[in-house]
């Protein structure tokens, strides 16, 4: 049996490394398309300033991209190193989208990113634009396949358990690919990435405008970001709402937990705007409700119910009892007692096997679980409500703030007045970190809300880990925390350094810190970089 501390440490490590990885992914998703827009304008108009914009924002893109690649390798290793039983149990389905992601998207992205940086003198304008586009396209395709894999963890379609191979096996690749959860997650996630990229460019451009330098460059960047950001922030909220509909359909526990819905409400259910969830007494105190709203979001109807957590627990209890029987039959089948009657009965109830496995936490034999242990397992089927309730509300509030901010930015850009609105520029600048917060909250809701499962209703998280010792986990955790902290400090240092420097970093002689020093030879550029050029003095 795996110790509880190994499970907790493995989860902690996965949470840290996954959330850290997603600090870099959304900016890659969004900024890459902003580069495509800027470069397209350059190719169409031939104006050098758009080339400079592509190159400068591309430099920041590169600083971010490097860490995205670094931390992405961890994600691929980690299923095998830390979640070996998971990998064995569902690798037949889960491995395929990851491998196809490599073949179809990651190769394309990583091959063309090199040409993006090194190909300016070697390719024609159109060829280079195509390279930039393919990089952006591929990074988004990458997200598609990863979310197909993740969507399957939430809603494991197109597969069934095989007792002979003791694992889940794929029955329909099309169902896995077209999993509705995967599709809504994909569009919501990439839109969130676009918002992140847009606000990054908007905020840094606002900084130059506040400082009154490189105004032509900043205004154009600001305008591109405002337009792209407005479209993205609208779509992220609308497509997020679509996610809510999918939840109502296939992830009822998560939806009820997010909403802190303990009782099944009469249709149409109200949306709880505010409240204090109380897990112990299974109530929500001081709740303020918007009538009808939840029913509309979750069921797209006024006459369907949204099931509450208490009723879901009743359903889970009967599934756990079925699961105990399924587990007993599985033991028989594994020991060679494979008569048709046993197989038939097992196949009839094997969908509840996962619920039986929940009891492994309390009794290794499962079939001998006491009534008390069954009730403990029933309680486990409901995640902690309060963190989900609050994370979700904060994420949504941020979503609406982005619409407002991009809407106003777009409006004043259209009026050619954005540069004079100091309050707007400051709001844009100080909002730069917010999309990251809402992205992380979104992932938290999606993954914490899936507990106690690593694969929804199929495989409990506590069974999914590798057979490791706590010493192994402390070693790897210390390594990750050490390296990741150091890398983040370095990345932020470079990002701030180049963002402050602005387009002068390109050394074209056309921008703020170089004007006046333009006649100086290359490398003498007006103290851009504090250290003298020691490297040429060999």
């Amino acid at each position, binding site marked *: 049996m795996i110790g509880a501390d190994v499970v907790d440490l493995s989860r902690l490590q996965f949470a840290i490394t996954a959330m850290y990885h997603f600090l870099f992914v959304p900016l890659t998703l969004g900024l890459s398309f902003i580069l495509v827009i800027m470069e397209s304008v350059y190719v169409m108009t031939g104006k050098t300033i758009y080339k400079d914009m592509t190159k400068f924002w591309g430099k920041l893109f590169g600083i971010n991209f490097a860490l995205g690649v670094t931390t992405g390798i961890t994600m691929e290793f980690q*299923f095998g190193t830390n979640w070996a039983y998971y990998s064995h149990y569902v690798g037949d389905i889960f491995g395929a989208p990851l491998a196809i992601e490599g073949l179809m998207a990651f190769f394309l992205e990583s*091959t063309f990113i090199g040409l993006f940086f090194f190909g300016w003198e070697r390719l024609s304008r159109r060829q280079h634009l195509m390279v930039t586009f393919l990089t952006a396209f591929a990074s988004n395709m990458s997200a598609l396949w990863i979310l197909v894999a993740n969507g399957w963890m939430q809603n494991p379609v197109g597969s069934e358990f095989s007792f002979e191979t003791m694992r889940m096996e794929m029955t329909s690749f099309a169902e896995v690919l077209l999993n509705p959860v995967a599709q809504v997650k994909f569009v919501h996630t990439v839109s969130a990435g676009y918002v992140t990229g847009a606000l990054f460019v908007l905020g840094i451009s606002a900084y130059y405008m506040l400082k009154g330098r490189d105004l032509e460059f900043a205004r154009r960047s600001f305008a591109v970001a405002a337009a792209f950001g407005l479209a993205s922030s609208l779509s992220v909220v609308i497509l997020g709402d679509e996610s809510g509909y999918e939840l109502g359909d296939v992830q009822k526990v998560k939806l009820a937990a997010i909403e802190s819905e303990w009782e099944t409400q009469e249709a149409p259910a109200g949306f709880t705007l505010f409240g204090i969830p109380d897990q112990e007494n299974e109530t929500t105190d001081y709740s303020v409700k918007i009538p009808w709203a939840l029913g509309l979001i979750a069921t797209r109807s006024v006459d369907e119910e949204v099931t509450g957590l208490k009723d879901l627990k009743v359903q889970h209890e009967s599934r756990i009892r079925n699961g105990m029987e399924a587990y007993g039959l599985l033991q028989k089948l594994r020991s060679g007692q494979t008569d048709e009657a046993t197989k038939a009965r097992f196949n009839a109830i094997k969908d509840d096997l996962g619920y039986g496995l929940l009891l492994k936490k309390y009794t290794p034999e499962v079939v001998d679980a006491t009534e008390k242990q069954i009730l403990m397992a029933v309680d486990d089927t409901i995640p902690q409500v309060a963190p989900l309730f609050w994370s979700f509300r904060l994420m949504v509030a941020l979503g609406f703030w982005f619409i407002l901010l991009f809407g106003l930015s777009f409006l004043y850009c259209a009026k050619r007045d954005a540069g004079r609105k100091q309050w707007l520029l400051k709001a844009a600048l100080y909002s730069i970190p917010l999309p990251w917060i809402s992205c992380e909250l979104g992932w938290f809701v999606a993954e914490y809300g899936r507990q106690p499962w690593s694969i929804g209703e199929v495989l409990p998280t506590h069974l999914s880990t590798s057979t490791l010792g706590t010493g192994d986990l402390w070693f790897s955790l210390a390594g990750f925390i050490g390296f990741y902290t150091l890398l983040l400090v370095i990345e932020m240092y470079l990002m701030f350094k180049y963002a402050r420097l602005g387009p002068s970093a390109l050394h074209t002689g056309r921008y703020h810190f170089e004007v006046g020093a333009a006649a100086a030879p*290359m490398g003498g550029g007006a103290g851009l970089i504090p250290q003298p050029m020691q490297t040429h003095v060999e």
Partner: protein
Amino acid sequence: MILDYETLKLVWWLLVGVLLIGFVITDGFDMGAGALLPFLGRSDEERRVIINTLGPHWDGNQVWFITAGGAIFAAWPAVYAAAFSGFYVAMLLVLFALFFRPVGFDYRSKVEDPRWRSAWDWGLFVGGAVPALLFGVAFGNLILGVPFEYDTFLRPTYTGSFFGLLRPFALLAGVVSLSMLIMHGATWLQLRAGQPIEARARKTVMVAGSAVIVSFGVAGIWLALGIPGYEIVSMPATDALPNPLAKEVVQAEGAWMANYGRYPWMILAPMLGFVGALGAILMAGAKRPGLAFTSSAASMSGIIFTAGFSMFPFIMPSITVPDVSLTMWDAPSSHLTLTVMFWAAVIFVPIILAYTVWCYRALWGRTTVEFIREHNYDAY
């Protein structure tokens, strides 16, 4: 499903081999060149020359590694689970070493401070040398057998330790893989870097190529004379549902040589390993770096297939409970998954090769110190 299960199992054994070869030919040269960076580049500009021959390509190359990992996950989930968790500490050391590469390439020249640059140079050295060494050590351990077992619900448990991996033969396998990637990296630098690096790389190819021949030869003799292999006594049909618990396996002296007696053509693989390395030495000496690179690639392919052929059909034998050893017959995914993955590979690998070639051609040419001076701010 056009291909039957048995054929697909065999095809995936080959495809994993092909992906590993793709990995050593592409990512191998940038790891090898990374391991050589502090030694062949003696000034900041020289080091930048080396880095910029790799700059546009290392990331695409690394995807061969990622995809090989993903393909093992998808095609042999049991191997992915047992090997990655069993080699836990070694895998994490590889991973931590790889951390230095993306940031090393991109960040190194963005700050002028020589201490900063030197630190990243050594980071790139670690990111090239450590994985090159540990991959070989891992292969050596597969050949020796790994202490792991299964329970009846197929949960793998590794019963050894990290230091248990550092057995003498496994370390020798590490030397083979490190020297072959260094040989390969040096042929790349001879091909793509300007003087004086080109000349230094030429000598390096000769030294590393000789190291490949000697270490690979010693490993072969050791394997024939002193390392017991594994032999299947009985097993289910080759197209049966995969179940690693259903066969009988024994350890036997010389068993890793048995396939060469049964299929004499397999001897071509080790011969290619030797001849390729010799070719790399001669072609480097004759200042034909393109041919040296090709020979080195052939040598590495031969060495990888030698390991595969010797062990076939084993992938990961268990030294403690030989019966639960993983083979390419009982570790794969389901028929459907292998089929889907097969078509994905058939469609995308040629496309990948096509645009990879296009990318290399677009950026072909020698990187020189003059190039670095002209591109002080936009080169790596």
